[in-house]
């Protein structure tokens, strides 16, 4: 069982990836699409920093609507491409069949202009449950392409992280392989690192930052939780974590 996460940065360059797209379950990002639609609608994209330094998109209701439309555009673009390659894709969000349940973060702490503030109207979520039974049933019908939109306790859409979604699906389905499709493999001092043993990870982390650092940490957690291999597949090569 292979889970593939298509990064937002390569949504418009999927033609450059060949067989790698063949996953049993596919998830994706799309924050570039969300930023673009927000900009076109004249709505400011606010990225906030959590006290521990993690950056996130401030997603009040007004932005949630834009998030949903832009992410579903990304979803159908992937479905359309896969169908054109004879892969019978079925595009879904976490609302559909209640596939992904998440808890809305009713309180989020963020640093704005150096001050710590409490944010209560954010519609991001923490993934609580993946409907594994339904996902397995659906993968008999076609290849599920799951958008990073979860269902809250109030049955509302929530913004969830695409990488975390891929990780959660890989673990709950006990996948053999988790592939992150993104623009670049992991580089250390400008060189592609082709292979990382999980117990060597600490040596490499200082070379990574932002999204890549999070992917490496997630890869480590995935392998430690039973996923045999995690691949960070870039346009320039790949990094395998085992």
């Amino acid at each position, binding site marked *: 069982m292979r889970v593939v996460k298509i990064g937002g940065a390569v949504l418009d360059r999927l033609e450059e990836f060949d067989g790698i797209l063949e996953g049993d379950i596919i998830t994706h990002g799309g924050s570039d699409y969300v930023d673009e639609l927000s900009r076109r609608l004249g709505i400011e994209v606010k990225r906030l920093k*959590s006290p521990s330094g993690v950056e*996130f*998109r401030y997603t009040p209701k007004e932005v949630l609507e834009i998030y949903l439309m832009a992410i579903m555009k990304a979803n159908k673009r992937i479905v359309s491409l896969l169908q054109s390659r004879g892969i019978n894709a079925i595009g879904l969000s976490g609302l559909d069949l209640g596939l992904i349940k998440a808890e809305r973060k009713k309180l*989020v702490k963020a640093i704005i202009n150096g001050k710590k503030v409490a*944010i209560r109207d954010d519609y991001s979520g923490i993934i609580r449950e993946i409907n594994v039974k339904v996902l397995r049933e659906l993968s008999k019908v076609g290849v599920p392409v799951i958008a*990073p939109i979860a269902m809250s306790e109030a049955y509302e859409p929530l*913004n*969830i*992280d*695409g990488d975390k979604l891929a990780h959660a699906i890989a673990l709950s389905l006990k996948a053999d392989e988790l592939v992150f499709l993104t623009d670049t493999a992991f580089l250390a001092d400008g060189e592609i690192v082709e292979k990382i043993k999980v117990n060597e990870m600490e040596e490499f982390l200082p070379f990574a930052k932002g999204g890549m650092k999070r992917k490496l940490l997630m890869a480590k957690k995935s392998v430690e939780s039973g996923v045999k291999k995690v691949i960070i597949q870039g346009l320039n090569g790949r990094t395998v974590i085992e």
Partner: protein
Amino acid sequence: MVECPVCGAEIEVGELELHQIIECPVCGVELEVVGLDPVVLEEVPEVEEDWGE
């Protein structure tokens, strides 16, 4: 000066914003500004970090 709702200590506060979070210097608890004029503080629970796209 404002009273910490958890330990009762008097806290020196400068200019505050609604929803701003400050730390009680005595008991170290995080407090949210839920009211201005007068300033009203409320304890802020710990939160799990996780993020969307």
